[in-house]
């Protein structure tokens, strides 16, 4: 239970808000590379501000505030070249740093343009996503987390959800929801609607633990019948501060990404890398992207798959859940720990210090700890994940199933399974 004031501090992400200032210390994915196949500029919204994201003919990405500083027309409908973007309304031109470099209708000897600068950021491509940084200098390194840069078959599910990003983050430190939302509730739906619910999620939690580490919080669990020697406890998987969760198992590694669009909107991505041991795949130029569906035309939630159940739990709390009305139990200790981590890092930023997980050292890859044998389910977990999760909407679902089945068959033939 928090005060209304504390809740607002933790959930407001706009410019000038304490959380907005903290969140502006990190890189965010905000578009796919294929978004620029048929255009050079796109409107995006991030941290409560509207931006124009553009790609020059030479392939360089840039991001500036969408509203032209002149008369506020959208720069997305401008002229993009290798120097930057020019407003379509009166021709004012801005370079990648947001500096106005041309004002065609003003007199040549005027220094007016030198005094006009719009807010800008950095933009780069990694793993088929376009990443942006809109915070203060010095610009940190773009963290090359393993899933984004390692080889395999990638597909990315996306949807825009009408709720605050923190509701989704708190779900990442809430292990017990798995056995209920994805276990008992899924089984209930299966029995009443006539389908087979996956069994991997139904095991009871006997013990959970949370450890802080250099990128966030490692979550561990011991399920009924398991021990401290199982991957779920020995390795666990991390919440990566402040907007990711890394999960994996059975040859699938996934980064769940919660981009804070504004106080009440989150762009939610499931970025999956399929690379089962012994599997063979063709090189991919870019990830396959697809939208997963979570609401029917009549407004009810689609809950017959894992992530649809999660979305129901996040969105049904309301746009910003009122934490002054909640009643937490001991199974919510991870939630309390995450709030403490946010508060601690809010303070660090206010005092001019570097918050957790900002990367300053150039690197090839950041490998994150993540269990391989998820829920002790072995290779069967991949099949259950692909058919019982958001990947059921993937246009390459059959290819993924074939990849994992072939790899499992090879493992079995080699006596490894």
């Amino acid at each position, binding site marked *: 239970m928090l005060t209304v004031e504390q809740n607002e501090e933790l959930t407001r992400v706009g410019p000038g808000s304490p959380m907005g200032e903290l969140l502006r210390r990190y890189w965010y994915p905000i578009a796919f590379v294929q978004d620029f196949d048929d255009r050079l500029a796109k409107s995006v919204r991030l941290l409560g501000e509207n931006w124009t994201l553009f790609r020059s003919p030479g392939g360089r990405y840039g991001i500036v505030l969408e509203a032209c500083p002149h008369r506020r027309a959208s720069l997305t409908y401008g002229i993009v070249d290798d120097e930057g973007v020019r407003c379509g309304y009166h021709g004012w031109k801005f370079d990648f740093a947001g500096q106005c470099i041309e004002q065609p209708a003003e007199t040549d000897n005027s220094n007016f343009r030198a005094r006009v600068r719009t807010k800008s950021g950095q933009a780069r491509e990694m793993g088929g996503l376009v990443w942006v940084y809109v915070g203060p200098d010095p610009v940190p390194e773009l963290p090359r987390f393993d899933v984004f840069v390692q080889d395999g078959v990638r597909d990315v599910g996306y949807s825009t959800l009408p709720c605050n990003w923190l509701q989704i983050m708190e779900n990442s430190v809430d292990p017990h929801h798995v056995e209920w939302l994805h276990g008992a509730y899924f089984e209930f739906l299966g029995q009443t609607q006539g389908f087979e619910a996956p069994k991997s999620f139904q095991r009871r939690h006997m013990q959970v633990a949370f450890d802080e580490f250099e990128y966030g919080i490692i979550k561990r669990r011991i399920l009924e019948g398991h021990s401290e020697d199982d991957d779920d406890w020995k390795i666990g998987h991390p919440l990566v501060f402040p907007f990711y969760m890394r999960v994996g198992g059975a040859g699938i590694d996934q980064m769940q990404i919660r981009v804070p669009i504004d106080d009440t909107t989150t762009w939610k991505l499931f970025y999956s890398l399929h690379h089962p041991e012994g599997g063979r795949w063709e090189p991919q130029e870019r990830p396959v992207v697809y939208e997963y569906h979570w609401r029917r035309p009549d407004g009810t939630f689609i809950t017959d798959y894992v992530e649809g159940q999660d979305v129901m739990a996040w969105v049904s709390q309301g746009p910003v859940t009122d934490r002054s009305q909640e*009643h937490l139990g001991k199974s919510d200790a991870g939630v309390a720990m995450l709030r*403490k981590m946010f508060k*601690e890092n809010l303070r660090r930023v206010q005092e001019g210090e570097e918050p957790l997980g900002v990367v300053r050292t150039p690197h090839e890859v950041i490998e994150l700890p993540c269990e391989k044998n998820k829920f002790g389910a072995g290779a069967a977990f991949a099949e259950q994940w692909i058919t019982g999760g958001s990947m059921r909407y993937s246009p390459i679902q059959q290819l993924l199933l074939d990849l994992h089945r072939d790899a499992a068959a090879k493992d079995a033939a080699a006596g490894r399974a």
Partner: protein
Amino acid sequence: MTPPPRTRRRVVPDADLLPVDPHRLPPPSAWFAPDAERHLLDRPRHCPQCGASLVDGRSITTEYWMADDRVFFTWCGSCHWTGTIVPVERVTTTEPEH
């Protein structure tokens, strides 16, 4: 002899009897406003390590319940102490057989 069940201390939601709280409370019309008021007004107010205020906006305490206990997961913004604070209404000990 079985001890009588513990009863929780009730805080009467009368403004004159409540300490001044620097934080905003839920609106009176909210579903659990009296409950929230009670829980927010009698939470720990000072760090057990350094004595700094825990309610001045620099720190955070998140309350959760464990059986009869109210557990306050606490981070002090002054000395960075992290731990739990559990108010005790009755000390219960068990005498081992001897």
